């Protein structure tokens, strides 16, 4: 019974991951990991457009340089440019490891 309970969340996560092709929010990435953007929360229209200007669009490839301590920003490298994204912004960007 207790085993089942423990297994439930992971099974649930697994199913969701297959649906999203294993997309997770960017703020769960670790330094040194590389990936591609899958989608950005569509309800954030302004943010979506601002990020698009910087080249942060679905299918864009990036690399995580540093993750700020104590819930600090995520530093990502995109081409030759580097951006710091606050955790709240990063949590709206869904990515998968490349």
């Amino acid at each position, binding site marked *: 019974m207790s085993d089942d309970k423990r297994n439930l969340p992971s099974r649930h996560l697994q199913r969701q991951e297959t649906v999203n092709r294993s997309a997770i929010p960017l703020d769960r990435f670790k330094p040194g990991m590389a990936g591609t953007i899958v989608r950005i929360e569509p309800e954030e229209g302004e943010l979506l457009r601002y990020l698009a200007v910087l*080249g942060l669009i679905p299918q864009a490839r990036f690399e995580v340089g540093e993750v700020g301590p104590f819930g600090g920003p995520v530093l990502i490298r995109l081409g030759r440019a580097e951006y710091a994204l606050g955790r709240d912004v990063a949590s709206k960007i869904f990515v998968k490891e490349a």
Partner: protein
Amino acid sequence: MVSGCHAEVARWKERLAVTFALAGNPNVGKSSIFNWLTGMGVLTANYPGKTVAVNLGTTHFKGQEIGIVDLPGTYAIGAVSEDQWVARQALLETHPAAVLVVLDATRLERNLYLSLQLLDLGLPVVIALNLIDEAWRSGLQIDHHRMGRLLGVPVVPTVALRGQGLDRLVQAGLEAARMEGARPTKRRYGKDVEDAVAEIGDLLAKEGMALPHALPPRAAALLLLEEDEELLAWTGALPDGERILTKVRECAADVGARHGEPASLRIARERHGLAGAIASQVQRQTSRPSRVQDRLWRLTTSPLSGYLLLALTVTGLFGFLFSVGNLLSDLLAGLWQAYPSPAILGFVQLAFGEGVASRTLLWMVDGGMNAALSIGIPYVLVFYFMLSLLEDTGYLNSIAFLTDPIMHRLGLHGRAAIPLIAGGGCNVPAILGLRVLTTMRERIIAGMLICLTPCSARTAVIAGAVSKYIGWKPALSIYVITACIALFAAWGLNRLLPGQSAGLVMEMFPFRRPSLAKMLRGTWSRFRDFLFVAAPALLAGSLVLGLIYETGLLWIFTAPLAPIVEGWLGLPSVAGLTLIFAVLRKELALQLLVALAVAKYGSGVTDLLQFMDKGQIFTYVVVNTLYIPCVATVAVLSKELGWRRALLISAFTILLALAAGGAARQVLAVWTL
């Protein structure tokens, strides 16, 4: 709403034969080019309700005077953020003869996006390939001839810091301006996007009417597909507007269906794709870039060394500010009292006699000037110099990165850290530094936090009264109390104000070797603001207070203030009067307290403890630390946030100070110091 700035820019432009706009991403050396070309006599135009300004200057080239509109540094021209909106408005309204686009040669790919967008608007573009020396140093070779051919515009390599290539840039701008009308608006994106653009463009051209800002049909069609609000509204207002908008929606849906994303995003993607393709064709990495940048990054942003370095920097900053500031302050005050002060005294007395009028005037021309000199130059100037150093080296980025999580809880983000730290030196430059924040909401929260940050003048009172007469522990406790109140107030304001914090999206710039000339220019351009806003307020305030003091009107305030000062705070009435005067300069409170005490209690009084007990001194300093910073701060606050908000913040700090003072009195009645 826009007419204010539009009229201002139009008047300025009227007398100039040729005007260029200067565009570019943030931190690519655009200001360096503007400063190098224009020198003195720069005007600043503001759009009503907008916090980002446009700078206007002129340059002389081969006997011709050319106007230069310096747009805010942006990644694109649009309406997504305030700076983009202002850049777009200023660009379209001024109808520049040419747009000089400044590019960072080391980050070509991202920088080309803006150039392509400007070309899409049908504007005559000339590209300044700046920081080309930095690109070479990092082993990056760029074929600027090829880049020019691919884009169909002149490309001039420049090193703005040393003024290299700027003559050729202006020359190329003049040539581009002469070729007006011969600009090809070519198809550059994918077939689906271009077909949609052509279809809408043909429809607009067929209507045969003048498009807004004299845009070519292709540019207007692209903007409509990109969901540009101004163009959509303009089209909607046309007699046949609904038909055109239906067509736009159809075309956008078609592009969307074929590519699985909205047309606006598709256009952004293709523009990035094109920028990337051009960049990869013209640049070649000839040697491995050095790892120094990466190492510096890791050192300044990783948890352990990052915070250690930050603490050292802040300590050093204040150490430098206080030591150099105090030294300069004493020196200037000494010089002022030795030479100009006696001369002014003699002159005023000669002209106006020795009556009330003369003494009142002296408050302004002698006392006020002395205050402006001993605050402005030593603290504000020194602080600005340090800020330029942090900015120029790129360390500011690391500070923003490290402080973001704390700032986020207060409804701010990392970029607010610098003005807040500055507030500990002097509130005036700190509030002028609020411009790094993009939304009014963030500026209000940060502005209030700064006002509650004890500046060097308040520190002088804390040291001169509490630390001297009571001890260092109570002095330290005043800082702790103030910090708690300030953080709590910011936290509350963040919950009360509508909207939410924008979140940090910040480009991280590489570390650069600072240039003294650039730092000095940066320091001066900021100091100018202090000189023209805060200093006049300080002088006017001195005059008013001088009048109240010299005419004896001052003592009239004793009775109405009594319930608050004596009843609520439990302070002697003279103490309350000095608190009024301290709005001029906070450290004046202490000096005046002794002076007024002598006037009231006789010349035997030399020390505070003779007429105030320790609890009263503590309460007095708590109130002095918390209420309205000073006249100069309120002046810059109303310049940055508007006078209504400045008054509200001021009133709020007074209430807060009285509440804290009253509470301190009650606590100290039970728990004596």
